[in-house]
């Protein structure tokens, strides 16, 4: 009897723990070395190919409706001959305290056991609340029913849903690859090793600026890179707890080189 009571008490207490899951199984983290990024957009192309992103055409791109889950933001400093361009690749940051998840009335976006911020397309009713609340503007909406011309429709990735009109979508850290790696590891009766999972953008990066892995594993590359003194989080002051770490050398005068 007392055992059951204790169980109930533990259960009740667990509901008061922020995020409910006391410890996630994994903590997927991406580290992006901005000093290495040359703005080649290979990651963007890779994401389009891997995740069945639709191309929307010139007109819709002109009014900010492109579907890219990852984008390279370009910031210019100075006038033409003496100009500096700075790049920062931005994708869904998989925030621990994601504001978008609070907004959704139908649990279409929630936190899964891996600590990933997931989007369930079938549950989405399209209230746009998540896109409003997102400080990084990484959520993309299916404004129309997009169709690919032949023979490009043969190029869809079978592991990824083709989203229908009226649902919200966003970067997933290539959750289908995480899933595959988990299945493989389970077959071989071992936990996931560092390097088992490589999202498409990381795979495509020619300069090796992006690294992906489990932050809970102290020997993983991301765990080591996360201790880098150049580390910073994007919009950290908004207190969303993002899971993408950027590395950037800051000059003595305070500017980021």
């Amino acid at each position: 009897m007392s055992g059951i009571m204790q169980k109930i008490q533990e259960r009740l207490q667990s509901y008061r723990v922020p995020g409910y899951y006391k410890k996630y199984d994994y903590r997927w983290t991406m580290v992006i070395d901005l000093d290495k990024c040359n703005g080649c957009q290979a990651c963007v192309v890779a994401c389009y190919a891997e995740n069945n992103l639709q191309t929307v055409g010139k007109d819709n791109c002109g009014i900010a409706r492109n579907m890219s889950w990852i984008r390279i933001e370009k910031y210019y400093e100075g006038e033409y001959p003496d100009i500096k361009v700075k790049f920062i690749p931005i994708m869904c940051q998989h925030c621990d305290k994601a504001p978008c998840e609070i907004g959704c009335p139908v649990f279409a976006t929630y936190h899964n056991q891996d600590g990933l911020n997931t989007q369930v397309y079938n549950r989405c009713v399209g209230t746009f609340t998540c896109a409003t609340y997102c400080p990084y503007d990484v959520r993309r909406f299916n404004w129309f029913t997009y169709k690919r011309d032949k023979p490009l429709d043969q190029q869809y990735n079978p592991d990824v849903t083709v989203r229908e009109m009226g649902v919200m979508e966003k970067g997933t850290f290539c959750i289908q690859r995480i899933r595959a790696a988990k299945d493989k590891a389970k077959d071989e009766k071992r936990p996931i090793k560092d390097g088992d999972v490589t999202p498409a953008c990381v795979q495509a990066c020619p300069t090796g600026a992006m690294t992906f892995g489990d932050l809970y594993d102290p020997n993983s590359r991301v765990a080591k890179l996360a201790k880098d003194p150049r580390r910073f989080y994007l919009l950290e002051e908004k207190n969303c707890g993002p899971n993408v770490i950027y590395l950037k050398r800051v000059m003595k005068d305070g500017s980021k080189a």
Partner: protein
Amino acid sequence: MESALGLFDYVDELANAAEKMKSAGYYVEVFSPVPLGHELEPILGKQNNPIKYATFFGGVSGFCFGMVLCLGTIAMYPLARGGRMLWAIPPPLLISYETTILLGVLFTLAGFVLFAGLPATKEHLTPEVSVDSFGLYVQGIRRGGFNEVEKILTEYGAKEVKKVEE
């Protein structure tokens, strides 16, 4: 038993007649097109208000309903979102604030319908009482006593007295 319905044009006359009938031991009921609580309360006595129990019950059950809905559903199917607690304090309070009002209103309506004897199939005794006449309905008249009642009502200013068979 017989009943009589006296139609009056003026409320003060009706009030006097009602007082007289009541003291004579009849059961009186007033039909009117407007509320007459202020005028009749001294004569017919203070009425109780059973609706308040329905309202109170509705409010309390609404509050509990909101709490159970918020806390119970998430306990049945825990989904973490936004790094917040599953059992956070403000959202259930907010939802139960609304459900308190919702069920409070619905129970008040139900209580009103119940205690006011609605929905009823009884016909209006006469259409005038819903337009511009005030009716004094005297019940519990012994057989043969109608003429006496009619006389008193007319004396007090009733323009018409109807005999109602039950």
